[in-house]
């Protein structure tokens, strides 16, 4: 594996750990406790990332912010990949008019709509909450997996071993689960890690627009929005969350790109 993909793995693992262990790394009290006297303080020894506009510890908020980021990212990837794989393989397997409606119309409608706009629209009307955010981002995320899976089904089902399995009396569900899915798992993993990067960026963007998780849970995107009046007097308030978002997005993109290069023989150096 390339150095880039490896460094992606390390950073991603650290972020997931930080999210999982955040109650051990900083107390919830530290996230919440306000101190208006020392608000907007620059980083110092006791508050390595400074204090925010309400005098809360920025570092503790950054640590807890990883929870929202990772939780939303993982949930969106899980839900949209399952839905996408189901719809994609169904469409590819059924063929005929079913396939024409699903891939010809449904895919196109979703792809002809800028994803983030659809997510904004849904949360704007459903109301902001963790659940609605995950639902909205999954609704725009599944199409990628579905297209991929449909293409895989169309390709793999022509292989001799599938014909052999069918001749031996395997039914469609068995062929799909035992033969087609294992042969599609690698491109799905690539899609999932790129999807994770996309979901993290989208969560941050939605939170920045006020459409993310509600108070009191800190989220990196929301932290940047909340401090907008103080961006230029206390720049640490947008720089630290911004760096965290960029790190998380980069890490998962590195993993995806690294795996894709490994799986795609055309991109191997000769």
């Amino acid at each position, binding site marked *: 594996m390339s150095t880039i993909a490896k460094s992606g793995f390390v950073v991603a693992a650290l972020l997931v750990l930080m999210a999982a262990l955040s109650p051990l790394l900083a107390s919830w009290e530290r996230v919440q406790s306000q101190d208006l006297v020392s608000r907007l303080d620059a980083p110092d020894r006791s508050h390595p990332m400074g204090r925010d506009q309400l005098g809360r510890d920025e570092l503790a908020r950054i640590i807890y912010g990883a929870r929202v980021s990772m939780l939303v990212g993982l949930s969106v990837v899980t839900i949209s990949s399952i839905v996408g794989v189901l719809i994609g393989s169904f469409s590819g397997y059924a063929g005929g008019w079913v396939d024409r409606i699903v891939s010809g*119309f449904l895919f*196109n*409608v979703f792809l*002809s*709509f*800028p*994803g*983030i*706009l*659809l997510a*904004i*629209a*849904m949360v*704007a*009307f*459903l*109301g902001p909450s963790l659940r609605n955010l995950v639902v909205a981002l999954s609704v725009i995320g599944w199409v990628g997996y579905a297209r991929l899976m449909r293409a895989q089904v169309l390709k793999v089902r022509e292989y001799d071993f599938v014909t052999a399995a069918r001749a031996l009396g395997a039914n469609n569900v068995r062929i799909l689960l035992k033969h087609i899915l294992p042969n599609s798992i690698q491109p799905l993993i690539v899609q999932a890690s790129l999807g994770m*990067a996309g979901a993290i*960026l989208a969560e*941050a*963007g939605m939170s*920045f*627009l*006020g*459409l993310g998780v509600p108070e009191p849970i800190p989220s990196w*995107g929301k932290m*940047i*929005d909340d401090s907008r009046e103080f*961006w*230029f007097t206390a*720049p640490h308030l*947008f*720089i630290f*969350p*911004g*760096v965290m*978002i*960029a*790190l998380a*997005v*980069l890490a998962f*993109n590195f993993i995806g790109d690294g795996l894709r290069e490994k799986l795609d023989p055309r991109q191997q150096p000769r």
Partner: protein
Amino acid sequence: MRGFAFALLRRLLIVIPVLWAVVTLVFLLIHIVPGDPARQLVGENATEEQVQTARVELGLDKPLGSQYVDYWRGLVRGDWGINPVTRQPVLKRIVSRYPSTIELAVAAMFIATLISIPLGVTAATHRGSFVDSLSTLVALLGISLPSFALGPLLVLIFSVNLGVTPVSGIGGIDNLILPAFTLAAAMSAFLTRIVRSSVLEELNEDYVRTARAKGLPERTVIYKHVLKNGLIPVVTVLGLQFGVLLAGAIITERVFSWPGVGSLLVDSISERDYKLTQGCILVIAATYVLVNTATDIVYRFLDPRIKVE
């Protein structure tokens, strides 16, 4: 030529069901509001009478079918609803904001092209060089840095510290440059990669070897032959990315308080002005669909190799 005209017509006809789906989705949005949208609009303490008035204004007092017909009728007639408090018509507010969004998106596209084409071409022709590594770096930063962190950073550097651009406001190139650059960053990243790989691919073609073999200077080979073919896919991506820019503009506009449709959309959401939210989404989505279709048609003109299906 008849085949071409037919293909064109066919492409235009595909727009109709897509636009229909977009309008229908936008119409249905008000029905996914949990509880009673009319009650949400007027607030918890409103009287039953006020709620009823809001319900009539939102058109929610009729059966779904006739609401849908009314919605289409309103769209066609230019009656997109009014704000229940300020009595301002939705369409008028959107129309007044629309040019600012387009201005921002066009400027961003211009900047992205200006960055990515020279950078991508140089990266491809000087593979493994410093410029090639630089292009990779730009691509990585562009895709991973969120615009709501990049924007404030640019303002901090160029306006607050260096004092070369105004902090915010509208009108003139000065005010446009930072928002446009912020919006352009992600697109530049993506586009540089596309240009690089597209030019790399063309460099392996036979005609390049022929051109070199007959003694043409490398500059001529690159600029007269390779670019002509290598930039065709870039045009498609440019068109598709214009739509992505429109969506990205929602965030960029909020960063810079840019008075476009995007910031209007965000304001309408916090004010629970459902009709205005629907209108903004519809306008952005419709622009996206139309620009994509136009790109597709231009692409066919540019590359005669694309056959009629």
